[in-house]
């Protein structure tokens, strides 16, 4: 259950990213690609839409909890942030980046 749910979250995050940027190829983005880096270049418009979709679909308000928006570093960090808050975390799962989540110490 948790493993399946974990994959679902990361797949949904990728799907949302592809939708808000209008770039279908991002539905297959590697989980460790920096979202603010040159490859994706997440701008404030697409980023706002991404955060709104995450809030609507998962009930997780990243902007309210993560002042530095570290959760938006990669698809993996955003997925971990969502899973920590929705109880769908899979502690040793393959999609989870170590030491991330943007929730502070």
């Amino acid at each position: 259950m948790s493993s399946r749910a974990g994959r679902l979250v990361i797949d949904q995050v990728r799907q949302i990213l592809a939708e808000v940027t209008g770039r279908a190829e991002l539905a297959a983005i590697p989980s460790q690609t920096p979202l603010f880096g040159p490859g994706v270049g997440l701008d404030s418009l697409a980023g706002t839409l991404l955060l709104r979709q995450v809030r609507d679909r998962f009930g997780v308000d990243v902007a309210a909890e993560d002042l530095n928006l570290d959760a938006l570093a990669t698809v993996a960090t955003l997925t971990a942030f969502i899973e920590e808050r929705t109880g769908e975390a899979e502690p040793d799962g393959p999609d989870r980046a170590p030491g991330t989540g943007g929730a502070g110490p």
Partner: protein
Amino acid sequence: MIKCVIWDIDNTLLSGVFLESPDQPPPADPDMVSVLAALSARGIIHAIASRNPPEAASYAAAVTGHEFAAAECGWGRKSDAIGSILGELGLASDAVAFVDDEAHERAEVSFALPDLLVLSPEDMADAVGWPAFGPAVVTPEARRRGTMYAQRRRRQAEARAFSGSREEFLRSCATAIVIAAARPQDVARLHELSARTHQFNSTGEQVSEASLSALIGSAGQRVITVRLADRFGDDGMVGGCVIDVGGGAWTVTLLMMSCRAIGRGVIDVLLAWLAGAAARDGAATLTVGCLISDRNVPLRLALAGAGFRTRQVAAVGVPSALFSTQLFSKQLSGPPPALPAWVSTPDPS
């Protein structure tokens, strides 16, 4: 403050129903034409949400003699049409009014979008005198707003058809950004930006013209303006900031950018210029004080993308920082970020 009025067509903008007399559609409603004119003169823009074919919107524009920044014609829910318009124009629902003669349409929109001001045509005729429709200052930028949104539609249509990168698109548009020191005659527009911007506003507070004038003249303070133009049109002053430059560090105490500049790289350029100018001035750190609110998340995204960080970290599940001001800083070691070729900075920094 209302920035945009979204209009129904049948028995609202027109004195009758468009599709009921296809050979000779009804004329414009004279009362609503007066309202359109009065609001346009104050810098309020207009849009259409109608259960009609798209040609009804062109017809309404022709007979009323007014430009509509967006038009959604179809047979879906009005609240969905309005949602699309808000997205296209980059507006929040509490900055928009909706006018429709049908009570059930008004009820549907009120239920789905409770922040929106929903009015009958009769109420709209009265509402022209309400404070929500009367900005204190009307600048040249405000009066040109309707035209600028029409330019924006043409720009967005070309952007969708463009196959290259965003930088290539901005270059192909002959984008020109000018970052300059504020002059005394800029205070009206700077005040207006402080009152009207939300998504890219670091404080959420209006700044009076008197305060801005005083800041322009003070030692240790710099007031900066940002102007934007391209081959689609001249947007005038779209942003500005106030910087405390005393004590070997630069601290931005106010940063604001119009939503008409969204997606055109202006906020990123301003943050990059600030980093370079602060470094040339000998500052080791550039700091932006930013109110944490649900309205200016786009500004925080721009700060995060440009490498600014705050030390304050909220606890898990506790949005305790909401409505506090946090300091987002960037160390200025290493070479300053490069500015695109279309940015000019006429003042020595």
